[in-house]
């Protein structure tokens, strides 16, 4: 079982975590076309590489960001969300 490093609780087995998905900036709903909005809602980038993802340590309900290299299967780093980059 993999280990994920919660920025608050430290390294824990991945079974203590909930995976949400990639951090993806939301287009402006007021200006986005229907197609651009549908692309945001329904399409995901499955190409291997470093992904910035939302994860939650469930026992403490701690949300944070994990940068994960899905090609090498390693977690690059984890940190608290600091607003839109």
């Amino acid at each position: 079982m993999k280990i994920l490093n919660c920025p608050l609780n430290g390294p824990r087995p991945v079974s203590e975590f909930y995976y949400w998905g990639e951090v993806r900036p939301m287009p402006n709903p007021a200006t986005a076309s229907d197609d651009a909005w549908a692309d945001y809602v329904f399409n995901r980038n499955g190409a291997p590489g470093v992904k910035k993802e939302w994860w939650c340590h469930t026992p403490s309900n701690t949300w944070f960001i994990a940068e994960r290299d899905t090609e090498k299967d390693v977690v690059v780093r984890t940190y608290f969300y600091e607003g839109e980059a």
Partner: protein
Amino acid sequence: MRLPANSGEWIDRSRPVEFSFEGRSYKGYEGDTVSSALWGADARVLGRSFKYHRPRGVLSLANHDTNALHQWGGIPNIRSDVTPLVAGMALTAVNTFGGLEADKGRHLGKLSSLLPVGFYYKAFHSKKLFPMWERMFRFMTGLGRVDVNMPHRRTPKAYDFCDVLVIGAGASGLSAALAAAEQGAEVVVVDENARAGGSAGYQLGNDASRRRLLDSLLARVAAEPRIRVLTATYAAGYYKDHWIPLVSAERMLKMRAGSVVLASGAFEQPAVFHNNDLPGVMLASAAQRLMYRYGVKPMNKAVVLAANADGYRAALDLQANGVTVAALVDLRGGAGSADPLARLLQQSGVEVLVGHAVVEGIADGKGLCAGARIAALQADGTPAAQRRDIACDGILMSTGWAPAANLLYQAGTRMRYDKSVEQFVPDVLPEGVFACGRVNGVHELSRRVADGSRAGSHAAAAAGFGSATGEALPPELESPSHPWPIVDHPAGKNFVDFDEDLQLKDFRNAVQEGFDNIELLKRFSTNGMGPSQGKHSNMNGLRILARLTGKEPQQVGTTTARPFYHPVPMAILAGRGFSPERATPLASRHDALGAKWMPAGVWQRPEYYQVAGKDRLACIREEAHAVRNAVGLIDVGTLGKLEVIGPQAAEFLERVYTSNYANLKVGMTRYAVMCDESGVVIDDGVVARLADDHFYFTTTTSGAATIYRELSRLNTMWRLDCGIVNHTGAFAAVNLAGPKSREVLAGLTGMDLSAAAFPYLAVREGEVAGIAARLMRVGFVGEWGYEIHVPAARGGALWDALMKAGASRGIRPFGVEAQRLLRLEKGHIIISQDTDGLTTPLDVGMEWALKMNKPFFVGQRSLSAVAKLPRKQKLVGITFPAGYGGPLPLECNLVIAGGDIAGRVTSIAYSPTLGHAIGLAFVRPDLATPGGSVSIRLSDGAMVQAKVSATPFYDPDNQRQKDEPPAGQASPLVSANGGAVSPVAEGVAATLLEPVRQPAAAQVLGIADVSRSARIGCKGPGATAWLQALGLPIPAQPNSWLPLDGGGLIARLGFTEFLVEGPDALIAPLAAAPRGPGVYPVLRQDAALVLGGSRLDELLRQTCNVNFRPLDPAQRPVVLTSMVGVGVTVIPETRNGRPFVRIWSDGTYGPYLWETLLGIAIELGGGAVAPHSFN
């Protein structure tokens, strides 16, 4: 026959063990394996081979003797070569027809020409004959018999932790462990054998110094407190981040290591010659194991086939143990480094024949080994025509090794074929994984010790201990493995795979048929697919394929080595299952009332209440009738109960729900629908505004945990000035509904319940039966009613008071089924019952709940796009005529129009109130007009007609639940604080809670319920300052705690949440203090347990995947983790020199947590104790 005792043997000759095999009685010794005891008692046929039912004896004595699989009662496929002998065992061989000796299958070998390679695939080619072949194969194949009535075995798994895990306790593994421990690492050494030592304990070559070297290593390991040695346990696989299942006969340990050293050694490989499977032909290491571990004489007269110095040592060992060595036959042109050993053998009269091969084993009339037929090898490596027979009753094979690299492959090691040792060796190792000894291509004993020290030092350094010393060793001077230990024979029966009876020619034929890739060849020929998974056959298979295709072994490559390393019994894999269950604080009331339980997600809810002498449907209808005509009471404590507090609380709700909440008046509630980003309905509930900056809202039962989590994420992103508190488990909640509900409630509260003071959809805080409560006047089941929320600890008292007050008015508790019927009558939809993963509010007639003119809500943009598209479906009411007596559709039965699917039924029930059946269905929009008719296909294909109908079916104008529009001011709000009842005690039978009357249990492992202690909680950016102002010390670090003067503690959970627990005198003033800005009160209704005693560590390791051992109680750590599947807060401490923990969990998990932990404590010799027992 047994040898005289030797000093290192594993058997205890003072303790004989009686057992039987195939109906005959035998005697072995404590410490024997089944096979060693049988061989020592001169049994030679231990089993029959899989395909040809040939007699087989000892091959490896190292867990690859899969032709000696035995059945003992209900236990199938015992690996007798390694299974410890147990007194009274009654064993039979598997895979025989009529017993081992008389096996009717023994003539199958004569049919071998009719059973070519790939026979199965060829047989199944014909569709017509498939059933016949299937019947025959099912009859002919399969090994042991499974007994489905075997008693359940308790095999709890446990977590474990170490800095360096060394796999293999041979010379290299032991020295690796010593090197790692010397650098300060905590080391675990695991070995599948009953004792440590590996080949260093038996490959002696009659040289006492080799044994002394091992004894010295063993003594140093025993004296090293940082090394734990686990014998009779194997590392079954490698998983990410050094996570290794360690399997023993009793259970699986899930070991997390800082780094791993593979010192797993090598499998000795058989030579391939005609009749290489006769009982008496065995690997040299098998003979040495028999002699030095079990004191068994492997044979009387032997021929040793060698291609390395190991073979010469084996011959010397045979001589030293009274076996006549008739000849040593060396496939190589010379003895090489074994020259001195060859001279020793020659001096004692042994004929040493270099450049020769055993081409055939000669069988006697019983099929046992009676001689070896040898020939000189010609320049091209093939045997010369001239043969010579040497009489012997055993042939030793010592021609090479294959690395036990399975876990290295699983870890992602890149391997390369090294010609200098004729084996695969690690080329590029993954981070934190190290290899030493034979698996690393290092074979000579003193070099293995040096290689182990190097690997151990590097592994310790990788785990953070000391610095890495030692370099990789230079290559071996000569190869311990022969590149081609194989001779062809016209009569075949030169076995490559003993599991599957594969002969050399099978490979040739497979390649001829085009299966010339290692993975294809494996599957077509089944090489390596038997129980030993290629441990003795893959290497030779690879050499054969390389030669047949003109490639190098490196080019051929290996097949994938998947977990598990050995087969793992199902019982061990299953372990102890944890199925967390939540129970509302009212569970004991429901039980007392005869509740029939049904699961609702992780919750258990009453489906209905059983009345003696009445069937299920009658009970449900009576419950519904009581609600419509008098009054009913239902437990709705499973609803998610959240609060959002702060200046931007309204803004937050505006964003997450589809309706308006900024304009919701204080003291009022509003229905709320939540969508996801695609506009699909995911949850609904009721939002109540308690103050300008304070909302209390509910979610669906199944959504409670996930909605809270997602809302927390959204506000992590949005950073609105508000906090979300999850009070799902902290509040008990009931719905009191029915025309007489107001009368019942009036008797219990001083609140003004008039329609003017407490109108429809209002929320009030007040006292009910003396309990601080939140009350909401909601429609729920379409009658006048109140949803009443009180702190969980007071739920039982509230329920009792309402039931008592309602008795004279005919109150009935009602369950989920009656609730569904009542709500269906009102046309209320259930999210995820009447909606699915594609349903938007537009499909279910909830346009009224969408405020599209708001600036933003989740799903809004998608809904504006969806609204432009034509609807594909509409949720409509359907009804059946009053007199209809035919079958009703079931949920999910399809609506059919013009022969096509045009919808489906989502809910359906017969309404006694209305006198006909009603339901909800998705239909095509053109069929959605009320008054129209739809056809529904029943499960049996019959069609029935239903009428499309407007909803609600019952009281369409909602007269019964409503009255005049709201007026007047809300009553002042009171805060709700804790009670004095334990959620554990409320939910668990009293007998379970009864402390055992043995204070000693607290020393072994005591568990006590301390839920009754008073506590408060709060969180938010202002929490620290608020608590400080109240005079409390603040723990400096997140996840730490401080003791309080006068008893009690304050724990900091994360950065800004606090839990304060202590005597009532301390807590009461805190609970009463007005909250400051940025302080969000958390109602603590926890289950709180304390556990302590010498076996606490074992309990923690069975239930929690966090390593508590390195935590220093003096640092006062707080651990937020998961235990038996439940989120918990843990504080580890020491009491009276023994480990001790406090555990808090959501109170609704309390009964489950208590029962589960108590059960484990009792298994470990402890039990329930009074809390003061630990002092």
